[in-house]
């Protein structure tokens, strides 16, 4: 039988410059934990990545690098087991301008904005929709859609 303590080890690495704190990897592998937190700088999303994959997790190790949208995750084989248990990252969250709920990391919003043409972002809204959480976008959209109808109905009740 193979010694469970022997290498080579499948080791996970995260490029902290590239990781945007989305949930693609943690959706695939629940060993990657994700938690909301509050720091002096405001709300944060904390992520903890385990460093070593067990034998039976070889398949997940392969897919993890693939699902990462920014190529931040890499898996390598190492002869020695890494000393640290995990990699901890903290991302500053953006609060909704309207309801103040944290809804995305700064890096997620930056990633999306870079992919959306400037003219589309400015289109018919004074405030970019990316400053609002999805729930407030729905509320604002509904209010806008019902504006005329509410004027009519308010008049009818007078």
């Amino acid at each position, binding site marked *: 039988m193979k010694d469970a303590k022997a290498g080579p080890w499948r080791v996970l690495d995260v490029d902290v410059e590239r990781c945007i704190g989305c*949930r*693609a990897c943690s*959706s695939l592998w629940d060993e990657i934990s994700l938690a909301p937190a509050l720091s002096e700088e405001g709300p944060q999303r904390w992520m903890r990545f385990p460093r070593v994959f067990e034998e039976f997790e070889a398949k997940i190790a392969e897919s993890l690098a693939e*699902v990462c949208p920014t190529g931040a995750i890499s898996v390598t084989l190492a002869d020695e087991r890494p000393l640290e248990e995990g990699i901890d990252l903290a991302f500053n969250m953006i609060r909704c301008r309207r309801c103040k709920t944290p809804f995305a990391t700064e890096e997620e919003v930056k990633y*999306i904005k870079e992919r*959306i043409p400037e003219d589309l972002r400015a289109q018919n809204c004074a405030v970019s929709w*990316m400053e609002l959480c999805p729930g*407030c*976008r*729905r509320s604002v959209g509904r209010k806008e859609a019902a504006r005329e109808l509410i004027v009519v109905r308010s008049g009818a009740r007078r």
Partner: protein
Amino acid sequence: MEVYVDIDRCIYCHACEVACERVHGEARISVGAVEERASVPLFCHQCDVAPCALACPAGSLVQGESAVSFEAERCTRCGLCAIACPFGAVYIGETALLQKCDLCSEREVPACVLTCPTEALIWGDGEDGAKRLRRRAAGRMAQSCAEAIGRGRI
């Protein structure tokens, strides 16, 4: 073909949400009240230039000519589409992957349209849908004029 909304007819019954949930497992349409005077069903607008598709790193959301399609096998659940959608109409589902209206691609007429008891949801192409909304608006205008005349206001 698209789904048009006549919010004047929406009665906040949530039947569209139930129908959608029955077909897709989770509702991709949501009805909300505005100032207790109106209610508005909200769902994917099938944008011409869709931010969700632009943001999707996996090629799961694909910009089509008349709709934005969703390929479940490619989705990685990163959640970026939900942050990108200007209307808050893309949801990360509890049970499945992301939830976004696909106009019931596997059916002839979307379940929400078939279920809506007041025909507030209309299934039609650009011209047809807009024409039906205009006709209804004209009808309402005519009726309120007639009422005003009847009460001697005009």
